[in-house]
């Protein structure tokens, strides 16, 4: 099964006092560039990093990341 991972990190940052990518990165031990790559959907974080991001925003993991499956024939 193929699919893609999308995320709401940009919106969540905005709703948490316009937190910067650098600030989020600092809180979860990632560089600003890695946060930018995750946000852009270019890099899929480890499960641990994903949980940390969700914890920073105080929301369940599924509110941060979504899996969109594409059915192949």
């Amino acid at each position, binding site marked *: 099964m193929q699919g893609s991972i999308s995320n709401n990190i940009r919106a969540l940052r905005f709703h948490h006092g316009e937190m910067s990518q650098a600030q989020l990165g600092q809180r979860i031990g990632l560089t600003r*560039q890695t946060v930018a790559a995750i946000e852009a959907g270019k890099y899929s974080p480890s499960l641990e990093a994903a949980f940390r991001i969700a914890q920073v925003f105080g929301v369940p993991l599924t509110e941060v990341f979504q899996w969109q499956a594409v059915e192949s024939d």
Partner: protein
Amino acid sequence: MSHREKTAWLSLIALAVTFGPYFAMVAINPPDGSLPNLRQLGLYAVVAIVQLLILGAGHLYLRRASPEEARMPADERDRAISQRATTWAYYVLIAGMIVVGCIMPFTTGGWTLVNTALAMITASQVVHYGIAVLNYRRQA
């Protein structure tokens, strides 16, 4: 651009401006087969020292330009990129060492063998830093 991407660029540039001209000179004017050939050894020593100086000065400059970023430990994406780069560089290095260690000794020797070995090591370094830069550029 992250600190680690800058250092990968620095390493690529240092290789290009030192070993690039070295291998061009060796290709145009191959050293004679006599060993130890101090002139050739001296040329290699100069190139290696210049590379070290470029790397030292470059790292110092980058650390002073953004000390906070330089102090930050590698994160999971940095480690993944490094692992990918090392894997590809290993293939190049092992192929080169098979050529230099298992095939070339039957046909040649001396500085040709030494320079081919150096070229293979340099090629693996170029692949390592090249893959790292490419991955950082693509945000992979």
